[in-house]
């Protein structure tokens, strides 16, 4: 099957014919900054571009404080902040609450506070497992950390990674956004996914200058 070949010149001409509004792009950028929680950047961007954010920037500050607290391992602090922001969130999100408790336990173990960790596991986490069977497996994995001398090299050692903190932080962030009736994901990634998908579809029919590196978005000539 012979594919149609489109030269760079033709392609660039076609691209130039497509009109995109500046306001739309600004909105996308603002949406990204706001959802990801870059308050200062959002504020500056608003001043410089005149684009209005779709949520109150003050609420972003609160949300970012929570996210940061989790990322630094101050889970108790994060919980207090979430409850100040909206007491319903943790009361109606058993899975999130469990993960926060789990993170607390992980931090206690990381800091070598074994006694406290044991007490915490029994008093706080065990009841969660009783209330909800689906948490039992994760609970077991977490408690297993206590069984190993060399925690960083054990089978469940990945729980101690920073990535685990980031995962929990992301979960909290999403829950807060949802409670504020905001989309928890920015639009930008979806657009990029769409781009990649469209290119894959087009690949079957034509050879054309492709964007292979999303970061640079440079057009690479078609292989002939």
């Amino acid at each position: 099957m012979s594919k149609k070949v489109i030269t760079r010149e033709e392609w660039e001409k076609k691209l130039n014919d497509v009109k995109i509004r500046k306001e739309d792009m600004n909105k996308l950028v603002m949406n990204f900054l706001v959802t990801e929680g870059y308050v200062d950047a959002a504020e500056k961007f608003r001043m410089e571009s005149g684009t209005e954010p779709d949520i109150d920037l003050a609420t972003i500050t609160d949300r970012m404080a929570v996210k940061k607290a989790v990322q630094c391992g101050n889970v108790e602090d994060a919980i207090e902040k979430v409850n100040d922001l909206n007491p319903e969130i943790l009361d109606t999100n058993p899975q999130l609450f469990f993960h926060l408790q789990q993170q607390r336990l992980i931090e206690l173990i990381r800091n070598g506070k074994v006694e406290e960790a044991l007490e915490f596991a029994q008093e706080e986490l065990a009841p969660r497992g009783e209330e909800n069977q689906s948490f039992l497996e994760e609970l077991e994995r977490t408690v297993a950390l206590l069984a190993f001398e060399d925690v960083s090299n054990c089978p469940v050692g990945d729980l101690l990674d920073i990535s685990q903190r980031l995962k929990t932080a992301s979960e909290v962030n999403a829950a807060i956004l949802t409670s504020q009736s905001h989309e928890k994901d920015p639009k930008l990634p979806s657009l990029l996914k769409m781009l990649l998908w469209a290119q894959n579809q087009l690949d079957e029919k034509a050879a054309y200058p492709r964007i292979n590196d999303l970061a640079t978005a440079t057009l690479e000539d078609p292989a002939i």
Partner: protein
Amino acid sequence: MPTTTASAVCTTVGNNILLRLTSGERDVKLKALRELKNQIIGNRTKKLSFLKLGAVPAVAGILSDAVSAVDVADNDENDRIVKDIIVQSAAVLGSFACGFEAGVRAVLDAGADILIQRGCLVEEMPLLKSYMEVVDAGARSLKMIYQSKMAPKYDFLQEENMEFLLSLLNNESENVSGLGASIISHSCKTSLEQKLLFDAGVLKRLTSLLGGSLIQRDASLESIATIFKNNPEVVSQFVGPDTGRTLSCIIEIVKDRFARTRLLASLCLIVIRNASPCYLQDVGIKTKLINNLLELLDDPGRVGDEASFAFSSLIAEKEDMQKLAFEVNGVDKLYNHLQKGSLHPRRFEGILLALADMCSKLECCRSRCLSLQVLKLVVDALAHDSSDVRSAACMCLRSVSRSIKFIQNLSAGSFMNETIVIPLVRLLDDTSTAVQVAALGAISNIVVDFTTRRSTFIRLGGVKLLVQLSKSMDSTIRLNALRALRNLIFLAEDKCKEEIFMELTASLLASLICDPEPSVQEQALALVRNLVDGRINSVEYIFAEDGIILDAVGRQLRIASKAEIEIQGMYVLGNVATGKESHKEAVMDQLLLRAENKAQSCIIKFLQSNDSRLRTAAVWAVLNLTCSSSPGSSGRLVKLHDAGIVSHVKNMVNDPCLDVKLRVKTALEQFNSFDDSLASTSCLQFLTVRAVGELSHVVDPSSKIPCDSISNSCYVYVTDFCVIYSHVANSINSQCL
């Protein structure tokens, strides 16, 4: 790990917090409140232990004091602290009420709902600046309370309550308008309340909320559905320039990105559709709703669980919807979800009920289910832990067993016979009444067996169980047990009938005929009708124990007022009248016996009934009493004549109902024949004078039972009676000539 240590720690911490709550210093109190709040949010165990320590009344007390202190607050600092105390205590109380029954009860007992309403949501907040925090905290907490089943009933009839509600709805804050919507969704139950709310114009505000945030949209959809549910009057008033807008708005929302919103929008439309036949009837919207709900089943969470229930409410009792759903492979889709295994009980129940609804009227759906081997999964569900699932499985079986394919397979003695009957019989003994009733429904269909072999069921002691259930205190169980027995006895072999009768006994039957519940009486009479149908010696049953059954039948006929009872009773008499001379004379006695204060026999009332079925049954009885081949018929004819019955029959020669007309024709010919000597064909007597027993809820009238799968002429009884009858009528005519 010793458990005592943990709870001891908890109590120490708990007691410490509670102690600090009683402190005179506001700062200390505030800190303790925050700590308490952070301890209990998300933590059911902690809520319970703090509950036991008496936290709720303590906090309610603090709230009450703080609210009173509002007036006296004299500087900014005190303002702030008092406001904070109100916010924190409201949050604590709201958390106790969140999804935790004991907590809600404690909060209500402490009068906290009224406190919060008065303290946080009333317009005047004289000295508090930035009081939105207080309002929001109060609104959130009240919403938690109103979401519980135990929420106090909101009295919409009180004018000031209605005003308060409207003020809530019109408030800009999402939490406050959400509270208003929540109150409507959870408290509005009666049609009067629905009308009040509609007349107060809440719909306008709710419609505007549809365009608001996600939370406002969802809350508004639920409220709109609540106002319209089962209320055709309110829906019919829903006309005007606004209607189209609201409806199309909701229709748009059916395509929303959030699954829960899609579900709520669909439910809203279904409610409107079901309440009024004028709206949302075009094929486009019907298909959209069906497809939407089938798609929502894919959602792994609660939305997916509830989607099947919404689907059921959309298609139940509506053949056109079931057909549409079938055309978009609804049965297959439901089956695919069923196959997934380890389903949450609620989801399992929902899908089974959806299948039951799909198969309730259409043979194509039932047939598809059978080809897909749905039955295997359904039969497994009969043994599920959840009673709701067991019940739903029975209902599914009941629908599917209406299929001819099913009956054929059962008769052919395939494995389905035992694997289905055994678990069903076990369910007759279930701890849940609802399951028993559902099982009886399924059994009623399964015991219909045209090859006269109900062996498995009887062998498993099914009869004993059914008879036991027919003596239940619960009238629904009595009713359904009788229905099953009625079907079991339909066209049963002599031996089978005898076994059943021995178990039932004449005295039980007689008492059931006189049961306090009319629907039970009807089934009992129908059972007796099937009992005495068949060979001549079957009629003897009704004379057992000095004829108490016959007496009971006669008595009920004289006092009954419900057509269904009268019909069954007349057919009983009609069937008995096909017996020997003594049988016929006994029927005459019953008919000619008059009720008190009645000038004439009850049969005259029946002959004049508006219900053609009753007229038919009555004429049958007359026919059988005066059939030409019986020696005593002429004597009986005289008595009937003297009672005025014959002239009534003669007046019915042009009855609008064909069934009645044909029988009246025969009757008249019989009356006239007493002068001729007509060779009575035994065939004539056999075929024409036998009024058939009846099946209940079994066969789909649209499906035909092929003759060859059934033995003897039993089949003939079930299908179109008039067709056979007309053949026989012709043969009479020819002989007359």
